[in-house]
């Protein structure tokens, strides 16, 4: 059988969706314009009508659209999430990406034909957990948290029939997704409850005699000297003091880039590679989609001869956070 690996690209807006499709995405993923998805940012995401146009555009070109409904429904807003599931079914979404078991149960009962993917926010890092969601709700694909080494992913795949999707490029969560409340501890809002991490409304930049400071709800996340490049104050990527030493105590401001692992991912039978970044511009989506399309095609033609082109790395480097890249946990010594 011809090996295949789907390229799943982020669509934070209709222009980004069209850009991704035009540049070679096999699938795009999107969210509605509220807290039902984990990129709940002002000015981002889709109304029902926008989503309809997005689905039309993608399907006309033979591509798929996935809808992220990957926050945890809060007790007072249950209908907002079930309505989103109903809308996904009506729009003809190719799958919904879910984290909450209660919502999966609703989707499986109400729309048995709707394909379910387990979101990375579901924190499934082992085959027992993935099989739980498969047996209970019939999920057909799981997106695995960015914490496993490749050898662990391979072991996981040996224990389940569910397709596995991995993050290939973009912002790097150092914590297990779905099991991180750092943002609500500092600001009150978290990915699980509000679909945001280190929300913009809590960010303040201040020029001080000691340097430019970034604060999150008043907490000093980082301070930059004049010659340093600044970054968004995601709270796990600041410089802190541990036993008198100031450093990136949790994680450097860096992007995940697994381009060089591509032949290995194809050999393992990974179903899809996900590009992070629904909050990023269409220009980012264009650059990243183009490079990954070329790389995947080259790898599928001849994995043995596959080599990462310097031009690809340069192009991806330009759009990386802090212009640094890492293999993350896939490369074991990172841990």
């Amino acid at each position, binding site marked *: 059988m011809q090996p295949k690996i789907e390229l799943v690209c982020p669509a934070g807006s209709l222009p980004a969706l069209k850009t991704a499709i035009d540049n070679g995405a096999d699938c795009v993923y999107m969210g509605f314009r509220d807290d039902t998805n984990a990129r709940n940012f002002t000015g981002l995401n889709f109304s029902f009508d926008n989503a309809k146009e997005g689905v039309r555009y993608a399907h006309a070109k033979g591509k798929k659209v996935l809808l992220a409904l990957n926050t945890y429904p809060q*007790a007072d807003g249950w209908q907002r999430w079930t309505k989103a599931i109903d809308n996904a079914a009506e729009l003809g979404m190719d799958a919904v990406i879910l984290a909450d078991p209660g919502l999966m149960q609703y989707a499986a009962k109400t729309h048995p034909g709707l394909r379910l993917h387990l979101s990375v926010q579901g924190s499934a890092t082992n085959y027992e957990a993935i099989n739980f969601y498969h047996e209970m709700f019939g999920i057909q694909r799981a997106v695995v948290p960015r914490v496993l080494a490749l050898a662990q992913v391979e072991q996981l795949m040996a224990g389940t029939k569910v397709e596995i999707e991995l993050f290939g490029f973009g912002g790097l969560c*150092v914590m297990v997704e779905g099991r991180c409340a750092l943002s609500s501890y500092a600001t009150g809002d*978290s990915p*699980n409850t509000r679909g945001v991490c280190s929300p913009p409304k809590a960010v303040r930049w201040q020029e001080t005699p000691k340097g430019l400071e970034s604060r999150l709800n008043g907490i000093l996340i980082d301070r930059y000297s004049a010659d340093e490049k600044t970054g968004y104050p995601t709270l796990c990527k600041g*410089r802190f003091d*541990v036993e008198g030493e100031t450093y990136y105590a949790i994680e450097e401001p860096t992007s995940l880039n697994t381009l060089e692992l591509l032949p290995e991912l194809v050999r393992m039978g990974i179903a899809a590679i996900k590009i992070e970044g629904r909050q990023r511009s269409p220009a980012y989506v264009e650059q990243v989609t183009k490079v990954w399309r070329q790389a995947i095609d080259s790898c599928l033609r001849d994995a043995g001869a596959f080599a990462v082109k310097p031009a690809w790395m340069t192009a991806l480097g330009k759009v990386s956070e802090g212009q640094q890249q890492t293999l993350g946990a896939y490369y074991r010594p990172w841990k």
Partner: protein
Amino acid sequence: MKHGNSKMKLALGPVLYYWDRDTMLGFYEEMADAPVDIIYLGETVCSRRHLLRLQDYLDIAQRLAAAGKEVVISTQTLIESEYDIKTLHKIAGNGNFRVEANDMGAVRLLANKAPFVAGSTLNIYNPQTLDLLAGLGAMRWVMPVEMSREALVSVLRERQSGIETEVFAYGRLPLAFSARCFTARHHNLQKDDCQFKCLDYEDGLALKTREGQPFLTLNGIQTQSALVHNLIGELDKLQDAGVDVVRVSPQAHHTGEILGLFRECMGQHLTPEQALSQIEGMMPAASCNGYWYGRPGLDFVRNDNSTATA
């Protein structure tokens, strides 16, 4: 055994830190006589911590059960390796003690087999998911640490099942889990060769901002709050909300006395103000309780509703 007027039970959470073997054995010897109803035990953070093996925990469990405690074995939160899965199977099939499932993989092994406790990292945020887990055999759930009183009340109002509710009411909050070990990273060591540095930090390793504000606590692959989540001043509201079990998380010193204060406060032998002032000297850091009020977790709200950010 009845304790004063409160119907709520008092629980001791698993030890989240890495203490040496003698310290652990001595700690649980003391807990056998402590005024606590339920004791959770087991390694929930890191599989490299090996000074106590599962069999040791089961032996301690026997001892505590003989002393009249309800004992629950807690599973590891982040299950990654084949070794982790094997341990999970052993715990789920122990045949003797109730299990707290801290990952859906554990739920799969326990569902429809034995009544279990649904741990706080299962992310139960709504009555539909709560009822689903109750239907699979969960007899108790621990609400997510970031959940507010208001959210809890609306979950409990709409749920169908009669499942017990437990709240993390005292201790540094377990906020995040990672594949990376931040304690090893601090010592420029790889996780596979961590030299068990966690043994040096009995209450975790302090992370401060560059202006000295205590912010987080590094505990191996777990990240905790720097401040101590403390609901001893809120016990009446916990009971009114429908909470059945109040959890105290172990710390290196004074855990027995803290349990005593919770017990006295639940029995109304101490007022919340008295309890708060007595507990202060026993805490490794200042109090926070913002989550309970639907605010940033690090806030502290006094019962009279005046607010201060710690």
